[in-house]
């Protein structure tokens, strides 16, 4: 089935599909994965046209990343929670609570900025452990546990802050979210350092893709046809370098982008290359089968919630730094954005399916739409309606696909 009549010239390489077969695979079996990229590109094109190109101006691209970084961090944790078959409604409150503790320690207590960062992340981990305990060991559904957590940690935030906002943070703290790496290697109107970092990242990506393809081909697996594979790599490289160019010409490389990239790489590896990651998929895919295969379900569930707490702590630091202080109502509705990003990014409602990169793309789709509508001057109410509809359609698409796949079985 690797080559068909549409591609008379059989690829010489073992296991490589014809161009036709690759495209067909992308459009049929991988529709959920490729669909989201197509949607992302379509949304970018649409809003670029509607905003007369403002969407893709250097300043605006940088803004999108700064504005949505903490949602993307949360989406990484949320997609893992959802793959495991759970949900977390408390992340907004945990973000607020960790930020509040951090602000009290640094602004009121006069401690150095890094103590505040460690404290915020520590609070996040403790909150995650608390919820993990109830979900994993007591067996309360995550929906209930985290609904309670949403109230508990919001209340704790109000108590910690005494109902008033605290600001400002020292400049080092604020620079976590608002700072840039610029001018480290000089440059003539553009930042060479930014370009070099992006260049290295692209090179590493291309290298790993080639290795993966070679390994797959060695075991006679289907791999994409070589010309299409190269087209894909070139396209990715071009887009990434173009974004690098936009940033290099603006304010340089944002610190949060560095943090975010590191997190994405780590969590992609955790979900695909570690036993823990594998167990999360197993639990979400078939809980009983996982139990009967020796998966320590309770500890994996605990780990899932603990990790979500940790990332909520990180997001708390970034949000605090960006807003340069702590507010009692911070992080309101963040959980919904993170959940929406995961589902738009291809996570299955029933668990067992999803990808970290998918959730990031899902988050970026939301970010692009929101930003585009803001540029167009649409007010909040309309933005919410559109975002809601997009979420609904994305999941409907998933459900439809599943039914179709189920019927053809």
């Amino acid at each position, binding site marked *: 089935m690797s080559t068909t009549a549409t591609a008379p010239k059989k690829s010489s390489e073992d296991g490589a599909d014809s161009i036709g077969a690759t495209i067909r695979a992308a459009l049929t079996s991988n529709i959920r994965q490729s669909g989201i990229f197509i949607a992302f590109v379509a949304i970018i094109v649409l809003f670029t046209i509607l905003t007369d190109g403002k969407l893709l101006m250097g300043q605006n691209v940088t803004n999108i990343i700064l504005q949505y970084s903490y949602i993307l961090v949360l989406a990484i944790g949320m997609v893992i929670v959802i793959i495991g078959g759970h949900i977390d409604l408390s992340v907004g409150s945990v973000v607020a609570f960790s930020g509040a503790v951090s602000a009290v320690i640094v602004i009121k207590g006069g401690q150095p900025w890094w103590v505040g960062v460690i404290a915020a992340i520590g609070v996040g981990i403790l909150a995650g452990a608390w919820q993990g305990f109830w979900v994993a060991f007591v067996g309360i559904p995550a929906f209930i546990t985290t609904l309670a957590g949403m109230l508990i940690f919001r209340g704790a935030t109000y108590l910690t802050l005494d109902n008033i906002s605290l600001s400002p943070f020292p400049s080092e703290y604020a620079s976590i979210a608002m700072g840039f790496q610029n001018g480290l290697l000089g440059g003539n109107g553009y930042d060479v350092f930014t370009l070099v970092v992006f260049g290295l990242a692209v090179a590493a990506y291309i290298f790993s893709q080639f290795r993966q393809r070679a390994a797959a081909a060695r075991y006679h697996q289907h791999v994409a046809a070589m010309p299409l594979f190269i087209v894909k790599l070139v396209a990715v490289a071009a887009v990434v370098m173009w974004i690098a160019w936009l940033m290099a010409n603006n304010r340089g490389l944002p610190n949060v982008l560095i943090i975010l990239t590191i997190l994405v790489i780590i969590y992609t590896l955790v979900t695909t290359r570690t036993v823990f990651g*594998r167990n999360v998929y197993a639990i979400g895919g*078939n809980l009983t089968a996982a139990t*009967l295969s020796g*998966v320590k379900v309770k500890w994996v569930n605990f780990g899932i919630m603990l990790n979500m707490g940790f990332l909520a702590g990180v997001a708390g630091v970034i949000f605090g730094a960006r807003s340069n202080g702590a507010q009692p109502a911070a992080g309101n509705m963040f959980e919904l954005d993170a959940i929406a990003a995961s589902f738009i990014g291809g996570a299955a409602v029933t668990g067992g399916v999803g990808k970290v990169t998918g959730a990031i793309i899902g988050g970026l789709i939301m970010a692009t739409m929101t930003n585009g509508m803001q540029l167009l001057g649409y007010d909040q109410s309309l933005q919410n309606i559109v975002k809601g509809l997009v979420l609904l359609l994305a999941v409907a698409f998933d459900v439809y696909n599943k039914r179709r796949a189920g019927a053809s079985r």
Partner: protein
Amino acid sequence: MAENILEMRSITKTFPGVKALEDVELRVAKGEIHAICGENGAGKSTLMKVLSGVYPFGTYEGDIVYQGDVARFHSIKDSEHAGVVIIHQELALVPQLTVAENIFLGNERKNSLGLIDWNTANTQAVELMRQVGLDENPTTMVSQLGVGKQQLIEIAKALSKDVSLLILDEPTAALNDSDSQHLLDLMKRLRDEQGITSIMISHKLNEIEYVADTTTIIRDGQTIETLDMSEPESTQDRIIRGMVGRELENRYPPKTGRSIGEELFRVEDWTVHHPTQPGRLVIEDASFDVKAGEVVGIAGLMGAGRTEMAMSVFGRTYGRHATGKVFKNGQEIHTRSVAECIQNGIAYATEDRKRYGLNLIDDIRHNISSAGIKKLTKNGWIDTNEELKVAQEYRVAMNIKTPSVLQKAGNLSGGNQQKVVLSKWMYTDADIVILDEPTRGIDVGAKYEIYTIINKLAAEGKGVIIISSELPELLGTCDRIFTLAFGRVTGQLGIDDATPEALMKLMTQERTAKPATASAGEGK
């Protein structure tokens, strides 16, 4: 000869690839109790589903003549309307509703305003309960009643629908002796006092002998014979012969290369309680063992506790308060968690691979590596290249028919799914392999392949335990067979002494009867 209330004429029902029923004939006289018996998977339940409209008119061939007319039931609603009520093995009561609410569920007593008239409902409920010999408050929550009384409530519910043909699917499977007796007497009373015809599916031959007027035996989707139970030669042995009497064909690979060694694995005095009903013993003092290079079978009818026994041994994945000892190579080992079992080289391939055995939405590769993932992990990282290689090797070795190991497990046929499950457990390097219904829902060709794999495992010196409802399968693959009945090991037979009749006799042995000695002299 009394007139027939029901005639099912040459009923044929096909599922994709399988003929579940072929020209089945069933004639039930008005006012009799008609028993249907046969091995698991013989087609009894399918036949009852055809009759009750679960498989609607048009999806089967043949005619159902009910009270003189050809019936066209499109749903359960239709058949119930005509007075055919089926009571399933799993009770269909809502535990959080009251007795009266359950009896009239979907059939509510309404007043002129369309509201439920609770006075009428409760009064009628009391009268219906009286008919089945129950004296309960109609506003009692069903969850507060025992299983025996719940079964009677089901019958009261059927009576409320003006039943004329009552179908009971293994009605006493979950009941103790006195509750069973009560139920059987009720069936007789309903027949004698109200003229209600009953069809009873049962494995308990003494109950059939006690209550049935006629018995129809079904085997492999075909009617074998109908016995008039008033004839003196219609004995339990006669029924057993009808149930199992098929020729053993050459469907099993020869047991070559087996050399049976020392005892490898032994379970002693294993007792397990029901997970939700405290005090109910599911397994009682069960002991069994397997030697290196030996294939041991566990035979038992539905509800005997075969799967429950295996799962409770395998990491306590079933039941509560499991007690007993487990030995491997003469040393006592613990099997408190699945991880511990895998560590000790025990593997258990589940009966229902779709629900319990595989992650259907993940690919074949990940399913194969899931139980032995530790072997692929170095410094915390999974070697994914090695994983792919392992999956490929098993795909070739086990002849898993798929274009790629990256296919989702859910896209495979039953036989190939089972090969994935076996691959998964073989990769854990287990030397004690428990296979629960290894060939259920698999076509004949794939079955042969699975048997070949079982032979290979035994030839490698592993101890294999097979749980199966199909006696020919056990006789064709095993060296020794244990029989399990109602939670007890009732005996063991060496393959030379094991005949279907001897096994069936042990498998239907009641709790009250004296347990058979472990000697191998039961064969006839």
